[in-house]
C-alpha cells in the first residue's frame, strides 16, 4: 500500500485546486523567517513527515511560535519514528476552525467503483464515528466510467450541512478529488479533517493519499516522490527496483520463492515447524536467472542462518532458477546452508544443472523445509 507523505499529498491537492493551508518543506532549520513573513502569523504548525501513523502521540506534530520553530525542527529532524528517521518537517499556516469534516474517495475493492465517504464528524478516527454515529456517515458510489461533475455532489453537500457559497466550494472540492484520483491512479484520497473556517472557506488540513504501484509506468512523477523510496528498507528498495517482492522479517531462515502465495506459505511452514522466516521473497512470475542471482545477493546481506529456495514453477522455469543459483555461487560465497526445492516447468533440466554442480534438489516442500531447519538448528 504505497502511501505519500502528507506534504506530497498536499502538493497534489494544490495542483488539483483543492484548497490547502500555505506550507513549506524543511530539511534543516534555515530561512524560517521568510515563511513567517509569507503567512503573516507568529504561530504555525510544525509537522514531521512520516509514513507511519501516530505522529501526534509521538510529539511529531506541534503548534509552535516562530521563535520556537527553529529549535523544534532541529529537535525532530533525524529522530526515529517507528524505525525511520524524520527527514522532512513541514511548516504550515495555522487554521481557525469553525467545524471539522471527514472526506474520502477510494477505489473500492469489492464493488470496483469509486466510493465516496463523507461525514460532518471530522478530525477523529472515522471508524469510531462509524461505530457510534453510523447515521452521520454518508456513502456514495460512482461508476468507474462516469466523469465527476459538481451537480453529483449537491445532495451530499447539503446532507453535510453546506449551503450557498460553501456548498459550491464543497462540490468543486469533491469533483477535483475524484478527478485527481482517476487521473493520478490513486486508490485512496482522504482528508481528515476538512476544515470550515469562520470566514466560510473550506480547506484540507491533512492529506492521506495511497497510490497504485501498478500504475508507476504512467505516473512517473508520483513514482519518483521521496515517500516511494522511504517506504522500503534499503534492501526492500533494491529488491523493488529489480522487480522482486521482498519484505524483511526478523527470523532465521532466508526464503526465495516463486509466487506470492507460495512464498507466504513457505514463511508459514517454517514457523509451523518451529523455525522462523527472515523474509518474504517472491521473484515474481517468469523470473530469469539474474533475478534469482539478485535475490541470493540480497539475502547474503541479511543476517540469516540458512536459505530455503522453494519453487513450484509455472511461468518461471526451473532451469533458470538453477542457473541463477549456480551463477550466484560463482560470484560470491554463500556462507550459510542452502536447501533447494525445485519442481514444475523444466524441472528435469534444473535438477541436472544443480547435480552437475554437486547440489541436491528436493521435490517436495515439507521434507525440504525440515532439512533446512535441521541444518540451521544443528549449526547452533
Amino acid at each position, binding site marked *: *500500500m504505497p502511501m505519500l507523505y502528507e506534504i506530497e499529498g498536499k502538493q497534489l491537492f494544490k495542483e488539483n485546486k483543492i484548497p490547502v493551508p500555505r506550507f513549506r518543506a524543511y530539511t534543516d532549520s534555515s530561512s524560517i523567517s521568510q515563511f513567517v513573513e509569507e503567512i503573516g502569523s507568529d504561530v504555525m504548525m510544525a509537522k514531521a513527515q512520516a509514513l507511519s501513523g501516530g505522529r501526534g502521540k509521538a510529539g511529531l506534530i506541534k503548534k509552535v511560535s516562530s521563535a520556537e520553530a527553529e529549535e523544534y525542527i532541529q529537535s525532530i529532524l533525524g529522530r526515529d519514528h517507528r524505525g525511520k528517521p524524520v527527514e522532512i518537517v513541514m511548516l504550515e499556516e495555522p487554521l481557525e476552525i469553525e467545524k471539522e469534516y471527514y472526506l474520502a474517495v477510494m*477505489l473500492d*475493492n*469489492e464493488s*470496483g*467503483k469509486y466510493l465516496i465517504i463523507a461525514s460532518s464528524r471530522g478530525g477523529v478516527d472515522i471508524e469510531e464515528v462509524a461505530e457510534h454515529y453510523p447515521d452521520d456517515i454518508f456513502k456514495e458510489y460512482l*461508476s*468507474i*466510467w462516469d466523469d465527476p461533475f459538481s451537480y453529483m455532489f449537491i445532495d451530499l453537500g447539503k446532507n453535510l450541512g453546506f449551503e450557498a457559497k460553501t456548498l459550491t466550494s464543497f462540490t468543486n472540492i469533491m469533483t477535483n478529488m475524484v478527478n485527481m484520483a*482517476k487521473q493520478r*491512479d490513486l*486508490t485512496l484520497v482522504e482528508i481528515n479533517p476538512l476544515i470550515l473556517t469562520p470566514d466560510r472557506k473550506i480547506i484540507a488540513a491533512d492529506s492521506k493519499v495511497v497510490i*497504485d*504501484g*501498478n*500504475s508507476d*509506468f*504512467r505516473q512517473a512523477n508520483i513514482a519518483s516522490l521521496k515517500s516511494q523510496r522511504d517506504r522500503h528498507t534499503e534492501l526492500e528498495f533494491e529488491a523493488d527496483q529489480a522487480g522482486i*517482492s521482498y*519484505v524483511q*522479517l526478523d527470523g532465521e531462515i532466508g526464503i526465495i*520463492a*516463486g*509466487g*506470492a*502465495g*507460495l*512464498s*507466504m*506459505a513457505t*514463511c*508459514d*511452514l*517454517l*514457523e*509451523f515447524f518451529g523455525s*522462523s*522466516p527472515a523474509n*518474504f521473497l*517472491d521473484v*515474481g*512470475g*517468469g523470473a530469469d536467472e539474474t533475478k534469482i542471482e539478485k535475490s541470493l545477493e540480497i539475502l547474503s546481506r541479511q543476517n540469516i542462518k540458512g536459505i530455503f529456495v522453494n*519453487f*513450484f*514453477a*509455472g*511461468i518461471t522455469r526451473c532451469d533458470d532458477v538453477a542457473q541463477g543459483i549456480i551463477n550466484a555461487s560463482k560470484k560470491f560465497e554463500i556462507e550459510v546452508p542452502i536447501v533447494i526445492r525445485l*519442481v*514444475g*516447468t523444466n524441472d528435469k533440466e534444473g535438477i541436472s544443472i544443480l547435480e552437475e554442480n554437486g547440489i541436491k534438489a528436493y521435490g517436495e*516442500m*515439507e521434507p525440504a523445509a525440515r532439512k533446512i531447519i535441521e541444518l540451521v538448528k544443528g549449526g547452533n
Partner: protein
Amino acid sequence: MAILLDENTKVIVQGITGKQGTFHAKSMIGYGTKVVAGVTPGKGGQEHLGVPVFDSMKEAVEATQATASVIFIPARFTYSAAMEAIDAGINLLTVITEGVPVQDSARIRQKALDNDVVMVGPNCPGLITPEASKIGIIPGKICTKGNVGIVSRSGTLTYEIIQNLTVNGFGQSTCVGLGGDPIKGIGFNECLTLFENDPQTNQIILVGEIGGTGEQQAADLVKKEITKPVYAFIAGQTAPPGKQMGHAGAIVHGKSGTAKEKMRILSEAGITTVRTSSEIPIRIKENL
C-alpha cells in the same frame, strides 16, 4: 462436466507471438486445449505454433467462433486487449498479466459484468479442467481428473495443493486461480456456486490469503447455500501488518484481514481449515 472449461472450449490466445504467449500457448496446445487462433496486431495472416494469427479479436472470433480468450500481454496494454476481447463477444476472459493498474482492472471488470462475461484474473494462473483443457499457466502434469474442485487466490501455492491431492489419489474436477489483485473478476463465491451445481465435484478446496474480505463472504455463502464439504487453507499466518506480501491484495488491515481471523470465520461456517497444504488430503480421507 467440471466448471467453466471443457475439452470443447475454443480458445484464442492474445499475445500468442510474444515470449510468454508462445511458451504457454504451446503448453496449452500440448495439454489438449482447443487453441483455435492467436491475436497479435500487425501479424494477421501468419501462422504460429500451427495456429492462425489475426490482427484483431473481432476477426479471430468471426473466423473461429471461439468463446474464450486468454491474455499474455504486458500490463500497459492489457486494458485495451481485454476491452477488445469483450467487444468481440467472448464469454470467458482470462487475464494472466501481472501488474495491471487497478483502475484498468476495475474498468475491465465492470465491462465484463455489463456483458455477462466471466472474467478470471488479472495476475492469475488461469484454470484447468484436468485431462480436458487448460487456459493459462497451471502445469498440466501435476493434475489428474477427479472430483475435487479448487478455487484459489494464489498461483504456485495452488500447484502445491494440486500435487498433494494428485499424489494421494484425489483428482480434480476444475482448478481456478482467481488471481492476487485487490480488484479482480470472479471470486470465491461464483466458483463455490458453480462447484455446488457441478455433478463431478464432490469436495471443494478454497485457498485464501491475508487481506480483503473474499474469504469472509465465502464463509457466509457456505453457511447458507453450499452442501458439499469445503476445506480451506489461508496463506500468510506469519505476515506482519501493513506490509504488502507480493500480491497487491495481500496486506493485513487491522484484525479482520489476518489469516487467523479468516480461519476462525471459515471454521465457524463449518469449513475444515488446515495449517499446511499436505494436511488437505489427510482431512479429505478422514471425512470420506
